[in-house]
């Protein structure tokens, strides 16, 4: 479980392990919280309040979060709220496009040093690897084109097929060149 630091003051028990009272602005607000001491502040367990339309496997679409005390039900819990979460068809489309670009970038990064070396020392990038890198860049365009032709529900499911294939090919070529 994750924890978040609060601005509340704690009165610790004898073992300096449990909180016997919590105060804010000099007023006692809660008792019984259990957390490690850090200075004199209280850390609360975080409960994630995921939006109802959250789709499993897409946590990146949640956006930034804020922490709010659960004043109504449990004052010893902080709720992580995603106020800017966007699960509209347009957001899923952007996410599918970003994934294609990011997957390609990540894969290219593993052989970027060869390109830098070729610029700095004149050692050429092995032909097969240069060709696989070019295929990977083309695959991004293919994926972006495919995404344009999908129905909105398919945006949710799309997994940048062309990039993934080209990525596997580049990995294979790199392994074989070692």
């Amino acid at each position: 479980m994750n924890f978040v630091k609060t601005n509340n003051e704690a009165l610790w028990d004898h073992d300096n392990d449990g909180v016997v009272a919590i105060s804010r602005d000099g007023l006692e607000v809660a008792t019984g919280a259990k957390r490690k001491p850090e200075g004199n502040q209280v850390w609360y367990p975080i409960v994630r309040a995921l939006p109802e339309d959250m789709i499993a496997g897409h946590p990146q679409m949640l956006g930034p979060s804020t922490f709010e005390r659960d004043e109504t039900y449990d004052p010893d819990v902080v709720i992580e709220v995603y106020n800017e979460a966007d699960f509209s068809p347009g957001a899923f489309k952007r996410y599918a496009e970003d994934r294609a670009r990011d997957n390609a970038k990540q894969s290219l990064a593993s052989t970027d040093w060869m390109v830098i070396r070729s610029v700095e020392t004149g050692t050429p990038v092995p032909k097969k690897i240069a060709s696989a890198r070019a295929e990977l860049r083309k695959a991004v365009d293919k994926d972006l084109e495919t995404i344009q032709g999908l129905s909105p529900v398919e945006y949710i499911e799309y997994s940048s097929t062309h990039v993934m294939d080209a990525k596997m090919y580049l990995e294979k070529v790199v392994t074989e060149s070692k």
Partner: protein
Amino acid sequence: MNLEAGKQAPELDGQDEQGNDVWIPALERWTYLWFNPVFGRYGCKECQASLLHELYPELRMAGCLPFGATFDPPEVNARRNEIHVWRIPIIQIDRETAAAWGVLRADDDPWSPHAPASAAYLIDPTGVIMESYSNVDHRRNARVVLEHLEGARVTS
């Protein structure tokens, strides 16, 4: 708003991904109807439909026909079934049908023109809704449906 259990299910006719006409009341079988099936990313371990896929043989053995229902045309549903290696027929329905089944999204929902709300029904052979599922976690729901089917058999 989902339709309540115990009521007669509305009619549902449409084309499946093969272009076959499907008319639910004519089936006279236990039917599991899932509106807006979402598969999750291909290869994703949390694929939402995976459990329904895995339990498909068990559902069929229990005498239950599972269907998905979307606004998408047969060619899109065929493509999705092929990519995700799913064996469950997906029927194209219109907004009128979605409204009759209580799964039409509000006008201000950006998904309203593209997909019905995610909901599911278990319908008995006489066309009565035995179970109504809203906001269901479909990773678990196939198991729940099997339990409900078993329960219905015991009581009938």
